[in-house]
């Protein structure tokens, strides 16, 4: 069975990529055991740099490394990678379009136990607002492997957010990353759900639950910035309305991006996401997803409301 944890497959892919290209460097801020940067540290210690608990310095150092021809991947929890080092990502990296890859691990509420301080519900919005930034949210472990390779092999400032927990793959193993290509993972004709990350799988569950009454198309939007407006419009126009689903605040994330894209269209739209609140601790992932309204049932409810007008 294919690996089902994004972090694990990310670490494995980094090791492969580092072996292929000695210019790839993996930087950690004392969280390598979680980000899986430790896999590189163990396999190829010369290509791993421990920067200590200093995310701001790590981000700017990565900018310097990029300017002497290196391909740095900087790693931390998403909440710190995108939040703590925001200004360094903006000033040291993005203005210069530097070839730095920022990977926000344990994103969304996937670090369920640690609570609001460690759960990132705004990283997509923050990163998306920065000019020159690419934002990638892989749907599963398989797509994470492909996206990681894409990031290493293509120039540019890129942010990728990863889930901490294991869950079933919804994309094919070994498929090259389809950059900026929203992908239909289930066809349907009544309502389209645009989803990213773990919510792609949950949207498929919702579509299955509704199958005898409502035909739901599910689209995996793993490249949130740039957003392929042509494809979004194509998948939104031939249905009654659309739903977006993300493990992120409804402010500024995938829903916001899709709404910006469809601003001239008269298409009913519903958001499934975190309703402008912080997370909190939970004993298990399912509990916090339920608490924040991020389940297949929540998506099904939103689809029904669009379908029924």
């Amino acid at each position: 069975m294919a690996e089902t944890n994004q972090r694990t497959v990310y670490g494995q892919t980094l090791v492969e990529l580092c072996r292929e290209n000695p210019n790839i460097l993996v930087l950690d801020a004392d969280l390598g055991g979680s980000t899986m940067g430790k896999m590189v540290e163990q396999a190829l210690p010369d290509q791993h740099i421990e920067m200590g608990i200093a995310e701001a310095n790590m981000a700017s150092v990565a900018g310097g490394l990029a300017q002497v021809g290196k391909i740095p991947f900087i790693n931390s929890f998403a909440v710190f990678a995108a939040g703590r080092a925001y200004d360094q990502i903006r000033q040291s990296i993005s203005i210069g379009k530097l070839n730095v890859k920022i990977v926000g691990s344990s994103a969304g509420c996937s670090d369920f136990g640690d609570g609001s301080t460690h759960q990132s519900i705004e990283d997509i919005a923050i990163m998306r607002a920065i000019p020159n930034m690419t934002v990638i949210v892989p749907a599963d472990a398989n797509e994470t492997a492909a996206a990681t390779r894409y990031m290493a092999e293509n120039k540019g400032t890129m942010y990728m957010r990863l889930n901490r927990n294991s869950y079933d793959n919804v994309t094919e193993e070994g498929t090259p990353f389809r950059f900026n290509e929203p992908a239909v993972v289930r066809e349907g004709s009544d309502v389209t759900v645009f989803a990213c990350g773990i919510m792609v799988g949950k949207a498929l569950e919702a579509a299955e639950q509704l199958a005898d009454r409502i035909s739901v198309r599910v689209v995996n939007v793993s490249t949130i910035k740039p957003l392929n407006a042509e494809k979004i419009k194509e998948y939104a126009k031939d249905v009654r309305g659309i739903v977006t689903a993300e493990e992120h605040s409804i402010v500024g994330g995938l829903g916001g991006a899709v709404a910006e894209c469809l601003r001239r269209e008269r298409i009913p739209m519903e958001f499934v996401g975190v309703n402008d609140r912080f997370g909190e601790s939970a004993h298990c992932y399912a509990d916090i997803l339920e608490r924040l309204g991020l389940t297949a049932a929540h998506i099904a409810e939103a689809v029904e409301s669009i379908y029924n007008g």
Partner: protein
Amino acid sequence: MNENRKRISELESKAKILRQDVIKCIGVGVAGHVGGSCSAADLVTALYFYKMKYDPKNPHWEGRDYFLLSKGHVAILQYAALAEAGFFPVEDLPRCKEVGFHLQGHPHLSTPGIEVGTGSLGQGLSLGLGMAIGLKLDDKPNRVYVLVGDGEQNEGQIWEAAMAAAAKQMDNLCAIIDNNTLQAQGPIAERLPSEPIAEKWKAFGWNVIEIDGHNMEEIITALDQAETIKGKPTAIIAHTVKGKGISFAENVTGFHNRALTQEEYDQALAELA
């Protein structure tokens, strides 16, 4: 006159030209960072016209040394040095901040010879550290120089970088602290006192050299000495005077970022002639 004396005299003349360029770059009626440019002018002159290797016709030449202006607000000083070194025409200087032009208010990669963008204080030393690490990984001899403001040392990131640079033993990295003792809102000793500076850098594991930042001989001696230190980065703490060379701007907080009147402009150029 012996060789050394002659060289120093030439560098002193060059520093005067850079200060004149700064004034011409700012012009009349437009705010510009006169004070911090003039305090660092001798340091930047020594780097560009004595110490650093570079090719103005090929700014990305692999053998070059790197200069990063962590105190990015004195971009005009670096622009003056780059123009005098031949990276772009001196005639470009007065067009600084013109919409669509390559000379931005803070260093930007659109300008030939600029290695990284800076302006948000505290980040240049980290950027330089990244370059130093990358160069060392490739066994390259290039050196990295970062000009840090003394007020800028308020930023925590400076000390994150200081700790990391010493831990990684980056002896190809040299920080130069423009210790002009004034920050934007007044004397550092009154705003956010940060002395003892030398002891702080020593405690962080750096080789520290203290100099008079307007004495060209001391500057070039320090830069030469820094290159010989192995196993640790060097911090040159240069004691300077904000607004140096322009009588009415010297040690005056108000000249951190201010527009010049026509009268002040004329007087400044006359004093720097």
